[in-house]
């Protein structure tokens, strides 16, 4: 790739993110002013504004929530008067001990591995963009796509808990209650999804064009 590439950004053109109208919005040096789409009036920007900072904020928030999501109990099972609270990892261990390897694997991947992977990928992308790294931009873009694609599936755990709570309600025999971790886990998933959305993958390539 040569450094002199013809791009809309260099021409001072911006595509409206809502109606996709291409309009001329010459950037100022200090990038203080913001333009409006002449057709739909939406805000115009050539790159997502404050992308790195916003993503960092959301990733950090998700990291903080990740701790209680794993430490606090996810479900509280009351079966025949026996109360048992399980965190995500204790549930995984329970399924491994009871021989249900596939279920344990699904829970582990969906609830522990994927959220952590997303957070790590986002953090890696952010750091690489901030360090203006030119290393393997295509692979990094693929990582980003992976993060975005897998995002919605991370809610699997929350869905399972929700269904269990609704279905296993046998009065005195057995009930399942959602633990506080479910809330934090949902927060982690939602925050990472927002973080992935707020990250602008074009930042990966901007370095290469200069």
């Amino acid at each position, binding site marked *: 790739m040569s450094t002199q*590439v*013809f791009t809309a950004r260099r*021409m001072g*053109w*911006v595509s409206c993110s809502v109606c996709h*109208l*291409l*309009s*001329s*919005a010459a950037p100022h040096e200090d990038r*203080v*002013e*913001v*333009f*409006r*789409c*002449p*057709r739909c009036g939406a*805000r*115009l920007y050539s790159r997502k*504004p*404050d992308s790195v*900072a*916003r993503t960092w*904020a*959301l990733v*950090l*928030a*998700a990291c*903080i*929530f990740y*701790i*209680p999501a794993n430490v*606090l109990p996810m479900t509280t099972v009351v079966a*025949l*008067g*026996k*109360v*048992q609270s399980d965190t995500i990892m204790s549930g995984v261990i329970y399924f491994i001990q009871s021989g249900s390897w596939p279920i344990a694997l699904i829970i582990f991947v969906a609830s522990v591995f994927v959220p952590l992977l997303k957070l790590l990928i986002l953090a890696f992308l952010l750091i690489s963009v901030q360090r203006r790294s030119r290393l393997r931009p295509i692979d990094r873009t693929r990582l980003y796509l992976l993060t975005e694609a897998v995002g919605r599936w991370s809610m699997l755990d929350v869905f399972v808990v929700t269904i269990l709570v609704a279905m296993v309600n046998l009065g005195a025999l057995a009930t399942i209650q959602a633990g506080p971790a479910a809330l934090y886990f949902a*927060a982690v998933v939602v*925050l990472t999804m927002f973080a992935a959305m*707020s990250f602008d993958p074009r930042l990966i390539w901007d370095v290469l064009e200069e």
Partner: protein
Amino acid sequence: MSDSNLSQGDLPKVPVAPLKEKPSRFSLVWLVPLVAALIGGWLVVKALREKGPRITITFRSAEGLEAGKTKVKYKDVEIGTVSTVELGEDLQRVVVKADLVKAAERLISENTRFWVARARVSATAVYGLGTVFSGAYIDMDPGKPGKPMRHFTGLEEPPIVTTGLPGRHFVLESPRRESLEVGAPVYYRQIRVGEVVSYRLQEDGQKIVAKIFVHAPYDKFVRQNTRFWDAGGIDLKMDASGVHLYTESLVSVLVGGIAFDTFDGGLNAEEPAPEDTVFLLFPSLEKAKEKVYSTKNYFVLLFDESVRGLSVGAPVEFRGIQIGQVIDIKTEFDLTTNKVKIPVIIATEPERITFVGALPGGRTRKDLIDYLVSQGMRAQLRSGNFITGQLYVALDIFPKAAPAQIVHNGRYGYPEFPTVGSTFEEVGSKLSNILDKLDKIPLEEIGTDLRDTVKGAKRITTSPELLRTLKSLEEAVNEMRGLLAQWRTQTSPELNTALVQAQSSLAAMESALRADSPLQSRLSAAVEEFAAAARALKVLADSLERHPESVLFGKGQGQ
């Protein structure tokens, strides 16, 4: 990137975007991690604040205890969770570490007791059935406030009485265990009012000391003069009025129990007993109802005869009323005199005897026993049962006994009470009584009376009237003999001929009745004829029954 080939002049015209307002410098998105941090911080602070003391409890067995699962509960409220279950360093006990909530800090002290609540079945009740499903948990009783403590030794059995249970503890003492059992019921008028908390052998091994708990409001019925007795099992009594079966309840038959009641003086006689009052435990209701005499006088009796049949506990009686019992029997052999002495120690209860009036000579009650001995009171071995040979000690007045005194400062530690021998001396005194009575018989008078009688008899035999009477008697006998000879010569030949005639007529009768005699054959022919006639009559009767009309119309044409 085919567009890169385009030159600047070929660019299409695009509309120019108008300016919008200035964006704020501060991005609101940073509020998100801030909120997250606040929540996280709040969680950490909450966890730290709620973190209570970590305690260690040692148990003999970790049965049912699981790290991270088993709860610590007080009054069924969860106050902690077992975090680790490990073997102790000495491998003898199990060390359980538990994290309690903050609020539990006030509860636990050196007096706190912990035990594992499991399902238990005893003869009286089933406990902790809930733990069958929920699993065991560690229960606790905070006890009285005391110094804070973090290391505890768990109880193996749940305590019977926990703090805060209204009621009072009492102590029972008994020479035997009776039916004392931890958890055994305590009854008051057949109502279950408490339990046996614990029992143990006293350090010196002399008696059993039991602790019982009587629940409020029944504890006020335990008074200073209340009697406790063993109510276990069945009390079967047979007497003249029938068979009596007595039991407090079916439970007490199985597991035993204690009952109490106040017998004398009514309910208001004595104050309710304070906590930990010591009572005697009587073996039965009968024994409990017996009067207990507080003052006891001990004496030693020295016997030289055999005490076979006398046992410790044998009664000491005064004219058939028990006034004490034998406490101990010893043997003593005097090497210098070659004599055997048997000191028997008795305890008497003088309160059993009511004394009326005053002692002569200004003596006081203290001199009573000395006075009685000077009046001839002695101890004696007597046979209580001729079959078993049981002996008892009798105190009685022997007016003729050799004078004796109570030896007060003897070497036995007890006053020596004088005794009299049972066999020899008793027989001797009886013999002398018989001799005394013999002495009183008026032998001289009897002799003169006897002589007079003999004289009278002699006079009668020599009198002429008697001679005459004998003579006329002889005549009467001679006359009688003649009469008999006459009867023999005249009457007996006639009688003989009559007998011969009777014999011949009997022989004729016999020949007539013989089987081959003509009378016999004629008789049998007549009987056969008679039978034929009877048959004909029967046929006639039958035909008449069938054809009654034949009487009038004759026999019809047969069909």
